[in-house]
């Protein structure tokens, strides 16, 4: 085999190896599953509030699932929507519910439910958390 052909073959092999390593390190370790549960548009039309199940199955057996409340719209800073609240998934506890009232986003949780993260306000929108 000519030296030039060997160099070309070796290059393809290296590229293939780099792609395989990239897939191994990126895809399986930080894979996010999203299931949208509820959406409510704000009365002024600027924002859409979303409740979504987000499953961070980061690596092999590690599971971390939350109900995330996010604000989506042209001014959002996070590609998934600006994060308002994370509530850990604990079956049979229900997911948060959302409403718009008086310019505020009202997020309702079950009476014993606790959030693990809350930002208030988010993107200039005040948040009102209520326990049902």
């Amino acid at each position, binding site marked *: 085999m000519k030296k030039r052909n060997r160099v070309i073959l070796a290059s393809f092999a290296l590229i293939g190896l780099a792609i395989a390593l990239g897939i191994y*390190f990126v895809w*399986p*370790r*930080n*894979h996010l*599953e999203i*299931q949208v549960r509820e959406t409510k548009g704000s009365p002024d039309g600027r924002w859409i509030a979303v409740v979504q*199940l*987000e*499953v*961070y*199955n*980061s*690596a*092999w*057996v*590690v*599971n*971390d*699932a*939350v109900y*995330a409340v996010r604000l989506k719209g042209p001014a959002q800073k996070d590609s998934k929507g600006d*994060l308002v609240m*994370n509530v*850990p*998934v*604990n*079956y*049979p*506890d229900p997911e948060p519910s959302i409403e718009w009232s008086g310019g505020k986003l009202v997020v309702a949780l079950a009476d014993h439910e606790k*959030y*693990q*993260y809350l930002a208030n306000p988010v993107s200039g929108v005040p948040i009102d958390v209520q326990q049902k």
Partner: protein
Amino acid sequence: MQGANGNPALIPAGFDIKWVLQAAEGDKNQETNLGRTVSTDIDLAKLGRGGAWDLQRLSGKFDPRFIDSATILIGMYAAARGISRNDILNIENNVARTSKYAKGTPMDSTYTHLPARNVTNTDIGMRLVQSGAIVY
């Protein structure tokens, strides 16, 4: 059976955890008789995302009812296989090294790449087998 947060940890209908425990015992016996084999690695892979024993995704889609029991099953497998608590949590911790989690997720103070909930659920599974509460 209760999960880390005190809520019920359910097992999907039609799935028998004895399958996993008997396989774990088989892996243990094989290693005792033949030395190190790959059967443990193959069975550990079945507990991974989308594997045959990934209780959260047996239907092909993530089901939040089974999030705790999926990790409890890992603890059960480890106990039946004879893997120590430290070893199974180190395995989980090492593969989780580059992981990202939801904002605010409480992390374990020893196995710092694991959410505390995962560690507690692994412990619950190990205790259930080691205490003899589950016969297989």
